[in-house]
């Protein structure tokens, strides 16, 4: 039975293209009113996840439920989607796109649309094909927010926007969530995600590597950094501890990325007699990089 506070429930979602799994057994529950950031490197499966959620791609297996129900066309009255690539009609003007939205959605709010068009300084009479990439993204955002959606799925919503308009987008996202909307968005600009999102999931090569509340993740994930007199010693199997994300050695420097149980790992490393030892807090970017960036060739060990 689904949790009544869960607006979007993704269960075991898998999407394969031939032998390649673009998304592999993804399970996420997104609570109502939350801002959920989906992070991942290029090709991690973020866009495929969005497409499968919205029925734009057929999932190989698994399911997606919105408020406990499978996706149905009428649900789009309460949902908006901004794709990564511009899907608007290049030959239509901004005003014609607004008219298209007005005719398609009962919840369309012309006053809000006008305010947003002014905020992004868009020319209504200009054809969308003549807009810059950032303006096309802005127009897609105007259309998405003009219907007061209860669920917003935004794939790289700040792509191509200048810093001022990026800030506007973040403010819009935060404001919409404050009104009760559930927002799922992806971005390569992790600072923006950290500022707006209350929960994140990190995808890597199609699989979910980490998920949770941003503050909790930041509290859980630490780096134990030790400097030794000589080359960093062997960890004697400590790297196999489930709490250890990955280990980085650079000569006398040893960094151990830890999820939870930081104190225990700190004590274990302290027992090896380092010259100095400290525990560092992590920002979301550090957490992301430590989650997807482990590579033995870079002097790291899993």
């Amino acid at each position, binding site marked *: 039975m689904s949790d009544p506070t869960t607006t979007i429930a993704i269960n075991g979602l898998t999407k394969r293209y031939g032998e390649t799994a673009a998304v592999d057994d993804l399970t996420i529950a997104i609570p109502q009113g939350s801002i959920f950031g989906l992070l991942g490197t290029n090709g991690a499966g973020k866009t495929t996840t969005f497409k499968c959620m*919205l029925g734009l791609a057929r999932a190989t297996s698994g399911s997606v439920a919105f408020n406990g129900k499978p996706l149905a*066309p009428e649900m789009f009255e309460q949902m*908006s989607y901004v794709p990564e690539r511009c*899907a608007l009609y290049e030959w*239509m003007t901004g005003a*014609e796109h607004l008219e298209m939205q007005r005719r398609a*959605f009962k919840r369309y709010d012309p006053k809000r649309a006008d305010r947003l068009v002014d905020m992004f300084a868009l020319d209504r009479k200009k054809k969308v094909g003549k807009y810059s990439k950032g303006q096309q993204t802005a127009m897609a955002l105007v259309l998405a927010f003009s219907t007061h959606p209860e669920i917003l799925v935004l794939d790289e919503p700040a792509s191509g926007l200048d810093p001022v308009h990026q800030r506007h987008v973040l403010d819009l996202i935060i404001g919409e969530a404050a009104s009760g909307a559930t927002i799922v968005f992806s971005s390569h600009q992790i600072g923006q995600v950290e500022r707006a999102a209350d929960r994140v999931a990190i995808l890597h090569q199609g699989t979910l590597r980490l998920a949770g509340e941003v503050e909790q993740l930041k509290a859980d994930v630490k780096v134990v950094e030790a400097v030794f007199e000589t080359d960093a010693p062997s960890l004697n199997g400590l790297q196999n501890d489930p709490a250890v994300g990955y280990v980085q050695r650079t000569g006398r420097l040893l960094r151990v990325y830890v999820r939870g149980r930081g104190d225990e790992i700190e004590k274990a490393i302290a027992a090896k007699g380092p010259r100095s030892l400290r525990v560092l807090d992590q920002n979301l970017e550090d957490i992301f990089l430590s989650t997807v960036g482990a590579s033995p060739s870079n002097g790291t060990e899993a």
Partner: protein
Amino acid sequence: MYYPQLLRLTNGLKWLTIVLTCVAAFFIAIAAANGVYHHPAHGPRSSDDLPLPMFFAMAGFIASFFASRYARTLSEENEGHLPVVWTKPVSRAEYAMTVIAADALGICAAFGIALVIELAFCAALGALPFIQITSDAGVQLIRFLLLPLAYYGLMMALTASFGKAGRGLIGWAWCFSFVIMLIAALHPPKPWDTIATLLNTINPLAYAGYSHTNAHETVNIGSGPAPTVFTSLALGIDIAALLVLCVAGMAAGIVLWRRVEA
């Protein structure tokens, strides 16, 4: 729901009107320069000079070219617009049917515009009194109105699964349509004759030849009676065949388009 399609259609009808008017004006100017404009009647002519279905046939062919442009409606959405179209609060089938209904009205409007400009052209040349409303005019009107709709359905079925590739398919479909008509008309040895005849069963052009003979001349529109494959069949069969191509093509187009997901 179908606002972009309404814009496409109104734009297309506007340009069709402009182009046909210019073509008609060009020929009226030539006629006037040669004195035909002021002397429309070259001696006594019989009253059945210009059968009305001939105008239907011409309008039908013009509307068929117009229809082939709009047969790519669903295919055009596949060119990156599905995230817009498929996230509207309406089912895909309903969206497609609404768009098809709008296109069908547009095609009928194109037929009407072409017919009006043809008749205006005749009126400008003073030939209007020579137009004869033949006894089969009503049935022929239905047949030639169905011709562009049959092309629309057929080409929609061909292109609905494709994106930009659909553009090329439309062009090839027209070439194919003319070529198999030509092959059938030449009566090549078997099995080519049989193959061409079979292929012509799904060729709208095979059901749309028109010929009329009066005291002075024979008027042929499209293939004329000789190359038409199914000359022995009644007009009713032509209409039924065009109707089947139209409805089956549209239905196939919708089914294929609904399953375009990545």
